[in-house]
């Protein structure tokens, strides 16, 4: 039988999506539904002197008005318990929620929010990360020492998590170098921007609440509701209807408890739907603005001898899940290069800005961009072509990584050579202002527990019941292929019950590119149990030995005797009078490769990269010297993902990631006036459109690993977004003859760099 792995298949949720029948959270209808609106601080830092909700509560159509006074006084947070549901005594960023209203129409709710009288005493906001780290700085959280944290989190004043990564002897390494180069790169805050805004509906029955939410992480969201409302987790059911994208912006626990509180007070179902402005200002889940300082020593032949790095992440008002970014960003500073001596530190800095967290490949694109700009500058310093410089320094099998993990294999060079070949490196026949730029990188696969059930139905179909969450990538839809492969069936014979905390077993959500990697293993295990039971029952019915049977084309048959066969439907139907064909699996997360953390400090959640994957991106850019505008006519992206389970899906992830990364490279960044975002909308914060998007040459390489996901697969969702901005940056530098040291490389920044250069020449 031909394997289903690597075959093209049509996703199971596709038809309802293309016909407009798919229901998303904001599409659900409820009898007696009320509409929620939040009142935000609209100022960066202030003390609350008084909140008066009397007038709002008396308004027509208003059924509930809640503030922190109506919520349990619980501080929550994934790494640091530093926030309350509503502002308590102070506000720390413009999107801090001060109060919430539920009314019969959205207009009435908005009017009631406007009628809430809040008296503030404004304070000078803390905005700059370097200033915030000085001992003289006022504190975003004066009580920070009293906050509870996860084990291992090391903090300081205005620093909710700092870490150090040390390898070898960095001073000795610098002593061996012929050249030492120090540079600083900065990136602006960027946003996840799923096209579906956040939405939540809550409805109580007795002491139980059902919440429909646009969450990427139903189980952690349920835990957040239970913790903040101080009710048992079993009283909270969290259901995610179709999810309209997330990109990390819908990870972590968000607004479910606010809406549940409103619904409890109103005794009616309540729905919250965010506006696009709220998506930018209030979703406390943005890609960190960063400042990355790198000092690297190289020998005359291009060999890297040592690196010192310091990363400052502007984490905004609260920690949230930001330490994922901190930990991963720290693991990206060496890149996929042999850096024998390293000293790197990272700080997650509190300021009075929108809180940052894990957006698709947290810590990835910005760190890769800085490291790869730096790499090209090192190559230039020693007079090597950027491709050749990388060739000499990339990790190979047998090398040790940043924390001493030994690479059992490395496709880094293969990706590099293949991308160079496809893109025609170093390029020729350039129009004026055109050039190629290259970037390489690596990423990890995240091991985690994750559960699934599989059952066979009497009509010969199967059902997968999983805790996993489908964010749109198709990873949950692809589980059908894995089950079908085990059972000799077709993927379209499986229905999938997913993203409902009452049905599926635990899964940590669509985060960390982990769905296929972990839940895939769980589904295979569950299907394996069904397979065993199916074979046993079929053997009994066929009067054959189990070991002589095979499962092919929806039938159990005796190997070599196709006539002696039973449809799986018959076996499943017969099993309803005996032992049912059901199975469960929780995968078995592989452990991290051996590594060495001596000398390192802080919580290092990603202390080694499991089943690391590699990539190389090459971008062709055109820089308009008159306006500074950068266009990107072509991108080549070569990725190695272990084993490609679903080629169409994997290509889709790469294409989408590349285009998102082009946006980060040239368009996407929040501008600020003090503590207020200046461009919280899609007119001021532009995404790449179909008309701007280049063709993307995608090539997927395979290097299956036995300590990885199903059939040797590795994580796919996040790596594609990491490298393109870096390749574009290097192409811009090559085309413009000058380097832009801030992301995004907007027309204004490129123009300024070009003209500063002219000034220097004059």
């Amino acid at each position, binding site marked *: 039988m031909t394997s289903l792995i690597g075959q093209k298949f*049509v*996703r199971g*949720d*596709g*038809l*309802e*999506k*293309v*016909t*407009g*029948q*798919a*229901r*998303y959270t*904001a*599409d659900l209808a409820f009898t007696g539904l009320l509409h929620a609106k939040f009142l935000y601080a609209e100022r960066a830092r202030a003390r609350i002197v008084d909140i008066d909700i009397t007038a709002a509560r008396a308004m027509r159509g208003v059924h509930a008005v809640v503030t922190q006074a109506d919520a349990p006084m619980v501080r929550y947070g994934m790494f640091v318990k530093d926030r309350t549901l509503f502002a308590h005594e102070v506000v720390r960023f413009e999107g801090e929620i001060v109060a919430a209203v539920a009314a019969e129409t959205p207009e009435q709710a908005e009017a009631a929010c406007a009628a809430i009288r809040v008296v503030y005493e404004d304070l000078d906001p803390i905005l700059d990360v370097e200033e915030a780290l000085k001992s003289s700085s006022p504190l975003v959280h004066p009580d920070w020492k009293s906050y509870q944290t996860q084990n291992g989190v090391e903090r300081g004043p205005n620093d909710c998590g700092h870490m150090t990564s040390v390898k070898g002897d960095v001073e000795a390494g610098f002593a061996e170098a012929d050249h030492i180069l120090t540079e600083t790169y900065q990136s602006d805050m960027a946003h996840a*921007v*799923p*096209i*579906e*805004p956040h939405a939540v509906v809550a409805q109580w029955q007795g002491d139980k609440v059902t919440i429909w939410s646009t969450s990427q992480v139903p189980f952690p969201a349920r835990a957040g509701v239970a913790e903040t409302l101080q009710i048992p987790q079993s009283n909270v059911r969290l259901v995610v209807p*179709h*999810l*309209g*994208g997330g*990109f990390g912006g819908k990870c972590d626990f968000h607004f479910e408890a606010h809406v549940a509180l409103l619904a409890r007070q109103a005794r009616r179902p309540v729905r919250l*739907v965010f*506006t*696009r402005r709220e998506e930018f200002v209030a979703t406390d889940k943005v890609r960190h603005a960063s400042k990355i300082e790198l000092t690297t020593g190289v020998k005359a032949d291009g060999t890297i001898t040592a690196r010192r790095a310091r990363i400052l992440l502007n984490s905004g008002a609260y920690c949230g899940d930001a330490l994922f970014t901190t930990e991963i960003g720290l693991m990206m500073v060496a890149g996929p290069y042999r850096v024998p001596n390293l000293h790197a530190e990272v700080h997650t800095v509190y300021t009075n800005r929108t809180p940052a967290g894990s957006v698709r490949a947290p810590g990835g694109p910005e760190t890769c961009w800085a490291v790869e700009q730096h790499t090209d500058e090192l190559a230039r310093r020693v007079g090597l072509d950027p491709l050749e410089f990388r060739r000499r320094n990339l990790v190979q099998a047998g090398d040790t990584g940043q924390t001493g993990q030994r690479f059992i294999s490395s496709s880094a060079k293969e990706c590099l050579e293949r991308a160079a070949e496809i893109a025609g490196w170093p390029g020729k026949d350039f129009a004026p202002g055109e050039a190629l730029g290259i970037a390489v990188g690596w990423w990890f696969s995240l091991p985690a527990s994750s559960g699934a059930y599989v059952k066979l139905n009497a009509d010969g179909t199967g059902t997968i019941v999983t805790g996993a969450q489908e*964010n*749109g*990538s*198709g990873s949950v839809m692809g589980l059908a292929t894995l089950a079908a492969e085990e059972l000799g069936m077709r993927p379209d014979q499986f229905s999938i019950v997913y993203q409902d905390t009452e049905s599926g077993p635990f899964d940590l959500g669509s985060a960390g590119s982990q769905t296929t990697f972990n839940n895939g293993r769980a589904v295979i295990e569950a299907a394996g149990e069904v397979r065993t039971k199916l074979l046993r029952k079929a053997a009994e019915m066929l009067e054959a030995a189990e070991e002589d049977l095979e499962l092919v084309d929806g039938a159990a048959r005796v190997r070599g005797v196709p006539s002696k066969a039973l449809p799986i439907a018959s076996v499943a139907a017969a099993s309803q009078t005996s032992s049912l064909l059901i199975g469960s699996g929780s995968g078995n997360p592989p452990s991290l490769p051996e590594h060495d953390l001596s000398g390192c400090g802080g919580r290092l959640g990603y202390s080694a990269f499991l089943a690391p994957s590699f990539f190389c991106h090459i971008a062709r850019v055109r820089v308009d010297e008159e306006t500074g505008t950068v266009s990107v006519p072509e991108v080549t992206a070569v990725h190695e993902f272990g084993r490609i389970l679903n080629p*169409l*899906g994997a*290509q*889709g992830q790469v*294409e*989408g*990631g*590349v*285009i*998102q990364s082009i946006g980060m490279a040239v368009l996407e960044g929040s501008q600020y006036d003090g503590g207020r975002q200046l461009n919280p*909308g*899609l*007119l001021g914060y532009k*995404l790449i*459109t*179909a*008309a701007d*998007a280049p*063709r*993307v040459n995608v090539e997927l390489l395979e290097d299956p690993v036995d300590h990885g996901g199903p059939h040797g697969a590795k994580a796919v969702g996040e790596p594609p977004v990491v490298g393109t901005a870096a390749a574009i940056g290097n192409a811009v530098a090559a085309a413009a003859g000058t380097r832009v040291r801030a992301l995004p490389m907007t027309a204004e920044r490129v123009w300024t760099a070009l003209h500063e250069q002219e000034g220097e020449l004059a």
Partner: protein
Amino acid sequence: MKYPLNVRVNGVETSVDVEPHRSLLNVLREDIGLTGPKEGCDDSECGACMVLVDGRPVNSCSYLALQTDGREITTIEGVSEPSCPHSIQQALLEEGGVQCGFCTPGIVMSAKALLDANPSCDEDEVRLALGGNLCRCTGYQKIVRAVLRAAEQLQDRAGTTG
């Protein structure tokens, strides 16, 4: 104060009373029960709310419902019977042009308006026609390919029947 609105929606004569400030999107979703068109920005920036008014694509979030009085409206729900998807929908499925699906209804409507008006469109024309529809998942590659494939199929069909 509400005013009567008489429109033909997906071929069905429909009468509702609406306040003058309400958008076509809002009335389609809340009063007429068609949740296929999505609200992504309420500002004509994302295209998720795209519908056809007398065959022309409009962002229904920024179009007053009463402006459509007496006109013909097509939403994603009116493009095909789910048992028999339109060529654009079928191509999106097979080419992998749908991921989270939130932008998809708007994409289908923009593509349909293009193919209805210009069945022999080329890639640049497809990209331009979809320029008002943001998609964060796919990077547009497979969507563009799907629309071109649908155009080819529709032309082939027109060729064989005509």
